[in-house]
């Protein structure tokens, strides 16, 4: 079979998978539990697409825990992280509405969080309207 251009490059990446995690899987977990679950997935060479987003303090905690693992987990160099939030420019009423909805649902379910191991994801390029995952060769 003749390989098309581009397929060869993909073949060079050592195994990884993309996992989608619905928010319901982390809704009832505390901050520790959420971070542990996320890092377990990422350490298994998976790119995680999480419905919703972590709280600000959980995001910084995730970075801190990631740093603590570098040097202790073989070949782990950290993570690439990006959050695509649902709320762009909003007026006061819409902001109030989405805050209410978020409070009722327990998080911003319109957002998407992408987390991948730095050994696989070279960079997550983003601007307000699009997001690109650049993978390591």
């Amino acid at each position, binding site marked *: 079979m003749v390989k098309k251009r581009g397929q060869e490059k993909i073949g060079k990446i050592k195994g990884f998978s993309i996992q989608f995690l619905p928010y319901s899987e982390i809704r009832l977990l505390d901050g520790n539990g959420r971070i542990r679950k996320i890092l377990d997935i990422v350490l298994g060479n998976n790119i995680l697409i999480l419905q919703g987003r972590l709280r600000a303090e959980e*995001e910084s905690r995730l970075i801190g825990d990631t740093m603590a693992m*570098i040097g202790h987990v073989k070949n782990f160099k*950290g993570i690439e992280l990006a959050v695509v939030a649902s709320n762009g420019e909003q007026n006061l009423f819409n902001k109030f509405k989405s805050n209410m909805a978020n409070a009722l649902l327990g998080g911003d379910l319109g957002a998407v969080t992408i987390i991948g191991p*730095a050994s696989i994801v070279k960079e997550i390029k983003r601007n307000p309207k699009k997001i690109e995952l650049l993978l390591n060769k």
Partner: protein
Amino acid sequence: MAIKIFRDFFKRIFSGLFANKSDIKLGFYGPPNSGKTSLANRICKDWTGEEIGSVSKVPHETRNVQFKEKVEIAYKGKKMMFKMIDTPGIATKIDYEDFLKYKVNKKDARERAKEATQGIIESIKWLDDMDMVVIVLDSTKNPYNQVNITIIGNLVARKIPVLIVANKIDLRKSDVKKIEAAFPEYDVVGISARLGKNLEEFYESIFRVSKKKK
């Protein structure tokens, strides 16, 4: 009884006065190599004659939180006393091999990476202790970086006033408008810490933003 009331009254007044006079803890946060130490050095040099730390082209030069106490800044007749806190750049990944490109030997690169991870943990811990934070961004780079958003999100959650500095405006690729567009709810000042460009506006913003302090 009357003496006790007088004594308590004066104690309250004086303790209030001294509480207001305590130094404002001003933190410098941002990604690595954005110019946090260059800016902190520039300010410290301007007002105390001494620098706070060393700068380098190699990322993660600052790997410990650095302080400079009693930095008094004057602007248009007003004076404020700051404790400057320069923090290691926050990143989500550290690879010692990245340092090899800067001709750092392998052993030193590994050590630098180890210290950098500790520095990031320390930076994050210090977020709770700040009265006010200057986020220093490299205006030649894409500001839509999750680290920037995470730091700002943490500061907002803690009700800590934020000033965003778009550094390196002396470089051709600098785009302050892009940073303003990325963070429309915050004060953004374009400066060059290296050349000391536009620092007057920076000091003015510091005084203005400090009024939002708890």
